[in-house]
């Protein structure tokens, strides 16, 4: 099968579109998932004091 312009643009307009939409929805849900808030806060604050050496 040839990789023609028509074929690639059909793929781009169907699969390409939906996977990008799915991806952005997925990532937004992940980023705003309420129960992860604490973990993110902790991560954001964790770098402020990290000179006390490795834990392992």
């Amino acid at each position, binding site marked *: 099968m040839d990789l023609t312009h028509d074929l690639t*643009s059909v793929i781009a307009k169907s699969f390409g579109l939906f996977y990008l939409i799915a991806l952005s929805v997925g990532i*937004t849900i992940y*980023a705003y998932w309420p129960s992860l808030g604490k973990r993110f*806060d902790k*991560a954001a604050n964790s770098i402020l004091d990290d*000179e*006390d*050496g490795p834990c*392992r």
Partner: protein
Amino acid sequence: MMERLTGAERQIALMICVVMAIVGLVMAAAGHSDPLGIHGAIVLVAAAIMTCFVLRAIGEPEPAEDRTNSYYDDPTKAGLVIALFWAVVGMGMGVWVAAQLAWPDLRFDAAWSSFGRIRPVHTSGVIFGFGGNALIATSYHVMQRTSRARLAGHVSPWFVLLGFNLFCIIAASGYLIGVTQSKEYAEPEWYADIWLVIVWVVYFVLYIRTLARRNEPHIYVANWYYLAFILVVAILHIVNNLAVPASLTGAKSYSAFAGVQDAMTQWWYGHNAVAFFLTAGFLGMLYYFLPKRAERPIYSYRLSILSFWGIVFFYIWAGSHHLHYTALPQWVQTLGMTFSVMLLVPSWASAGNALMTLNGAWHKVRDDATLRFMMVAAVFYGLSTFEGSFMAVRAVNSLSHYTDWTVGHVHAGAMGWVALITFGSIYSVVPLLWKRETMYSWKLVEWHFWLALSGTVIYVFAMWNSGIIQGLMWRTYTESGTLAYSFTDTLVAMHPYYVARACGGALFLTGAILAAYNVYMTIRHAPEKHPERDYPTSSEAAEPAVPAAE
């Protein structure tokens, strides 16, 4: 450098050096009069120097430190010093290139000093030499801190750092003797490319293994950016450099792609080199060093996640904006244009996130030049991405393409964003790593800041003017429908701006030299700071090297 390696590690290092020396010898013998032969000799000399280093240390006593107690910062320190060395070399070359454009006689009639050869020495010198070393060094720092874990290995960090620099030396020396595969930012030939793949895979494995030791459930966002930088650069590098050597005893190779496919592959590479080398890695720096220096957590961690994925997934599609109005199919150009415009959103999200983090700490920005470096870098990041998205629109690109406007955009990003965030990070991390109270001279940091800022502004404004004048002159027609200006007319019009650019560049270079001097003096002369509390203590001090019973 070697004293912290155990006996077994020193032996591994020795073995690597010997293998390298053999490879160099084979290259030198097989390539003899070809540039490949010269590069073989360079590899051989580099391996011999390293062998001497290792041999001198091999009989020394083993380190007594407890490795679980502290981070392994020696490779970071070396990397930062090397980065500053490349900064001075690469920017010095940039000033020379700029001066040649203003006064062509500055070529001095040699072949090696022609514009086409020293220009890639400048671009590779600053991007890979300065930027690359700074990225590797800071990534070692950040991966250990954010994971609360020591580097996973003691030989591999050195292998990555020094191996990468060998690549840089092969690249730069190759340009001067005329080696190039004519792909911008990917000029080195096949043997250097293979070597870089090896180095890069080791780098990736080292990063993953260090993260695997981490103590936190969540991987701090700066690491994501560094990892994207490593992983995507590997993919780009391998695909774009697919080539068949004309012979195994010569440097010349032929690309696996032809015609417009080759062009598209090159600019898919080229743009993502901007995205993942000059942006993602440095965003990693921004997300770690800016909050740290401001002593405030990042404004919105959630936004940083969103913009990360936005940048990763949009950038991959944007490369075709470099090929507007070419043989590339129209729809591919439109695709690149659309994604470039969408890219503005995650880019500004990152820049805004950085500035909002500083909101409420403006007094610190005012007083602390180091933080100001990072703040201005974020502003230039916002500016250059806005400009980029604008230039990617086909109608705008018809004016800007091939002109100095592109060069102005490049340096708004490269000097204003990449170099400033790097200098800011270096100033914040050097006193910490060498356990000094502060930098040797804060006045010099202040001087550097203003030199760098004025240099960038002069450079960028000169190129905007020059580029737009040039573009407009090219498209001005007379009433009879012929071109109004000859090419020489445009050169005359651009000359003053070229002089201005060379001056701006010289200011920027002066700043970089001050930085190198200041760091050197900090290492040598700044008063030491003895950490009073939970600072990682070097365990040689904590426990006696000789057991008490003896």
